[in-house]
């Protein structure tokens, strides 16, 4: 049923640290790999080796430049996937009941056996989190790796979304954002995590941690080249070499 649950027992989601992300796209590849080989229809590519390759991805990394009024611009890598909104507009528009938000953990999923492929949920999503797979004709979206996080056939350390597991910079965190004591909730409080496009009232579960302010370099004295050297006498190996070479 496409009515949204009043509340969910957990609010599983991601916290993405924009200060730490290096823009390597490893999460994009890990996501594509896992979700092509596992749950649901594979994420197809069209003309993968042609002139204009296209394909279905559930996670994409944008890059933006923030230009302050004065000073240098800052480059920010910006991974974006489904935010598993509490007030998910994609769910309520679905005519077939294929889209739903799980009561137990808040994950927004698509039942591909019911999906009609009308694309209206993708229109309703502000974040571009849903993509209609050209080959399968059904809507694809982030499942928060629902087939990993509860999968007892996997070693415990692998029971987190593929993007989180693979991130070499530790920029992605997974947990229950409904539990104020969880590590991810604490991180959001500490770093003042934000919702994307808050004016649309979707109440995203996933949070973004803004980049920390840039360091400011200490001022360098213009006279410093004229200052006397601090160490006249070199010591150790360099000092010995210096003395030997001096004698030759």
């Amino acid at each position, binding site marked *: *049923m*496409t009515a949204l649950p009043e509340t969910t027992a957990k609010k599983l989601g991601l916290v993405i640290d*924009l200060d730490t992300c290096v823009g390597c796209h490893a999460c*994009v590849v890990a996501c594509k790999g896992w979700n092509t080989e596992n749950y649901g229809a594979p994420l197809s590519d069209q003309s993968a080796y042609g002139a*204009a390759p*296209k*394909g*279905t*991805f559930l996670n*994409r990394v*944008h*890059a*933006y*430049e*923030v*230009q302050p*009024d004065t000073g240098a*611009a*800052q*480059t*920010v890598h*910006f991974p*974006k996937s489904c935010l598993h909104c509490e007030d998910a*507009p994609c*769910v*309520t*528009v*679905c*005519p*077939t*009941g*294929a889209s739903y938000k799980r009561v137990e953990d808040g994950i927004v999923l698509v039942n591909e*056996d*019911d*999906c*009609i*492929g*009308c*694309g*209206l949920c*993708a*229109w*309703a999503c*502000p974040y*571009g989190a849903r*993509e*209609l797979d*050209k080959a*399968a004709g*059904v*809507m694809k979206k982030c499942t928060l790796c629902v087939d990993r996080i509860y999968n007892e056939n996997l070693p415990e350390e692998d029971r987190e979304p593929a993007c989180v597991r693979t991130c070499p910079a530790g920029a992605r965190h997974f947990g229950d954002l409904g539990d104020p004591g969880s590590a991810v909730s604490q991180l959001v409080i500490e770093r003042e995590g934000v*919702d*994307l*496009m*808050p004016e*649309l*009232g979707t109440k995203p579960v996933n949070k973004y941690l*803004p*980049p920390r*302010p840039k360091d400011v370099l200490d001022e360098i004295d213009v006279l410093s080249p004229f200052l006397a050297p601090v160490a006249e006498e070199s010591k150790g190996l360099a000092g010995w070499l210096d003395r030997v070479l001096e004698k030759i």
Partner: protein
Amino acid sequence: MHPAPSVIIFTTLSGLGFGLLAFLGLGMPAVTGWVAFFFYLIAYALAVGGLLASTFHLGNPKNAPKAFTQWRTSWLSREAICSVAALVIMGLYALGAVFFGASWQPLGWLGAALSLLTVFTTSMIYAQLKTIPRWNHWLTSALFLALSLAGGALLAGQVWPALVLLVIAGGVQLAAWASGDTRFRKRGHTLETATMLPGGTVRQFEAPHTGGNYLLDEMVFVVGRKHAQKLRVIAMALMVVVPVVLLFLTAGASGTVVHLVALVAVLSHLVGVACARWLFFAEAEHVVGLYYGKRG
């Protein structure tokens, strides 16, 4: 938004078809026998033809029957139910008019109401979307209903109602264009709110990929906007001005000429509505374009 031919054909034809059904249900004109048969044939060809066209853009049409289940939340589901209900009720009413020369009137009124409700539900599929500020307004529903009624009156040969309704539809269209042009900016969606990045002006540095994707194809359509103003003039002329002038000039006349003029007026209106509907999609800007540096 990508102006898919299937959706333009669907909304244009089914809007006209359900508009005609509404007038037939109200007994305007109160036709029976063969005349009724041809009126209903045209109405059903337009309404059903439009609905069939809408299934062409589905990725997985075999699940279409499931679209009748989610009427509690989904306008698309409500539209599916309303359209079938309108077609069934008006079908029964048509049966009476064609074969029994009867006017089973409460049925006709119900059918007319359901026909207009169908047009309203279609409009709400678009008007409900906060992600597309241009559509997210009551004027979208007013426009769909006004055009459906005007086209229905035109097809039903109701000269004076058609004249009045066409002028109203033209006014609503102008209002929709005028207020729609500034709504995205007024709602305050920017790349800064999309990324919530603090400390300055944000611009796209690099797209996530060098190729296209579904989102860009479907929701970041930018081709052809440069002709938007010309197309608006053409749409308005064909949709409203030409039919109004033709109807006005032949309002008192009778005979074959009137039918020929009416045919020209209907075709002009049809092409005009299709043109306006193309603009409705092509000019609609989805907020996801912000993430790709394609807005504002």
